[in-house]
């Protein structure tokens, strides 16, 4: 089974700040990490590989330093990494990014399964996974919380819903995005780290993946950020304890001033 995992290098959420002038993320001086959801996608891919055999390729689009996230993925069990990097990709929104990744996936070669994190913690759009599936013309499922079974022909998963889960069966090739509940990512192994150090990362340019210059980067991005702001904090929250009767009493006390 050939599995591709799409990962993104994001600023560590612990230090995220907005540039007050441009309203974009201030990335300077902020440490980059692998998008946390992508770590779960990678772990699931490695677990599937361990179960049914095959290989896991990690794919990222980003500046040359994004190579670090690919090496980290290799130390956690991926077999190799592909970096798509080109000045022309700069300023890509989810539309252009999913186009670029689709071109890259097709350049890498035949693939049975593509895994992505549910969303990236910097943009929080959750659009790239579904967008990529659409570009690749393969079925997809989002918010997977469990892989129930994998065979050469199909994969059966649980899709997390607000009130439980759906069981979804997809013919392969297919794409799925995962939530954090799906697994507990492993700690990078020593042998993995040695391998990550030695592995040569393949870098592909816009030309290498046959990308149309009009469809990538800023030129290919119809999204316009009109305004970015910190939302107003929601109201006060309180948790009541005690017996049901006591909790009801406390609730009534709280509501009285408004009655």
């Amino acid at each position: 089974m050939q599995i591709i995992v799409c990962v993104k290098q994001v600023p560590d959420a612990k230090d995220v700040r907005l540039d007050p002038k441009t309203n974009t993320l201030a990335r300077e001086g902020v440490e980059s990490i692998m998008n946390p959801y992508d770590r779960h996608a990678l772990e699931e891919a490695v677990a599937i590989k361990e179960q049914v055999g095959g290989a896991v390729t990690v794919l990222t689009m980003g500046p040359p330093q994004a190579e670090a996230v690919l090496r980290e993925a290799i130390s956690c069990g991926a077999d190799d990494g592909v970096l798509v990097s080109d000045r022309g990709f700069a300023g890509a929104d989810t539309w252009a990014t999913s186009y670029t990744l689709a071109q890259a996936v097709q350049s890498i070669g035949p693939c049975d399964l593509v895994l992505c994190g549910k969303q990236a913690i910097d943009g929080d759009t959750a659009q790239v996974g579904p967008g990529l599936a659409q570009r690749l013309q393969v079925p997809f499922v989002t918010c997977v919380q469990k892989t129930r079974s994998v065979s050469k022909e199909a994969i059966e998963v649980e899709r997390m819903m607000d009130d439980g889960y759906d069981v979804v069966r997809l013919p392969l090739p297919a794409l799925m995005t995962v939530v954090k509940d799906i697994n507990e990512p492993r700690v990078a192994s020593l042998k993995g780290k040695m391998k990550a150090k030695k592995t040569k990362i393949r870098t592909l340019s816009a030309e290498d993946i046959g990308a149309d210059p009009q469809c990538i980067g800023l030129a290919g991005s119809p999204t316009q950020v009109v305004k970015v702001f910190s939302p107003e904090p929601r109201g006060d929250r309180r948790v009541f304890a005690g017996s049901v009767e006591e909790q009801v009493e406390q609730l009534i006390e709280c509501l009285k001033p408004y009655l």
Partner: protein
Amino acid sequence: MDYFFTEEQQMIIDTAREITNEKIIPVRAELDEKNQFPREILEDMAKADMFSIFVPEEYGGFGGGCFEIVLAMEELARGCVGVATSYAASALGIFPVLIAGSEEQKQKYMPQIASGKRWAAFGLTEANAGSDASGIRTTAVLDGDEWVLNGTKQWITNGGESEIYTIIAMTDPNKGARGASIFIVEDGDPGFSYGKKEDKMGIRSSSTRELILKDCRIPKDRLVGRRGTGFITVMKTLDMSRPGIASLGVGLAQAALDEAVIYAKQRNQFGKPIISFQAVQHMLADMAIQVEAARALVYGAAKHIDAHPKDMSKVSSMCKVYATDVAMKVTTDAVQVLGGYGYMKEYPVEKMMRDAKILQIYEGTNQIQRNVVGQELNKEYS
């Protein structure tokens, strides 16, 4: 202090640190309270190749020495000495095979240990054979193509959890120290079972259990090294393993120091943080000085041992005594700095102080270690 680690050594430290921060610290209080063996954490360590550190490369290991083990164990002990002890027991248990085992034994067992699929344990102590290992009563008698073992081992770390046990038994009881031999006993061997599980003061997540050998029959080729060389192998094993215990002391003391400093900066009394009072500052300073000194001695001893000199025993014992005495002192002082809060289970220093005590006792009491140092001095100046 910068010790200029190699890239490989830094990888070991980083991996152990990640295990400690992500897998050990979040659950250590619960494991301690429930007396629960950290099977899942050890499995995570196996996946991260932690058990391969002390296995030579030709048997699928990372090929590290005493120094690399020390670096790993120091980081793990920062999280929990009970978990670190459970990890270390596998190294201790397989050292006799590494030191004296046949090529066939190494080919068979070392890859299993390196992958972490099977764990080892070391069976030396008995009810009447603690500091005085010559009091061993367990016997091994050759009967055709099999050894028949009889006896009871006590306080065996990883007892009932590991699959591979190195057992010290008397093959010639009349010959005293020259009558002891080491055997590999595996979980499931006929006549081999587990007895009482101990309820301990500290390192409560580790399993400490009796091993019962009742007409336990094992194949002839499970003898490790030559017959009658068991004690020599035991001494060499302990020389190699003691810096590991010392490093548990360093890691634990460092963790207690970290907690004490963080608390002293946050805790306000008389209108200011208690770290601004000289009485507290001096305590913290002494703790930090002792931790650094202990670390330097342990690292030095481990590097000395990795050069395979003849005189390992003295430095090995020295670092074990010093670092574990420091751990006891520093954890006790950390409880003092945290005051009433330090005595409560809500804060981790209470557990750290309980865990520290065993370090002065197991793997040879600190009194026995001082005997070793004294005897070596006596020899050196003769």
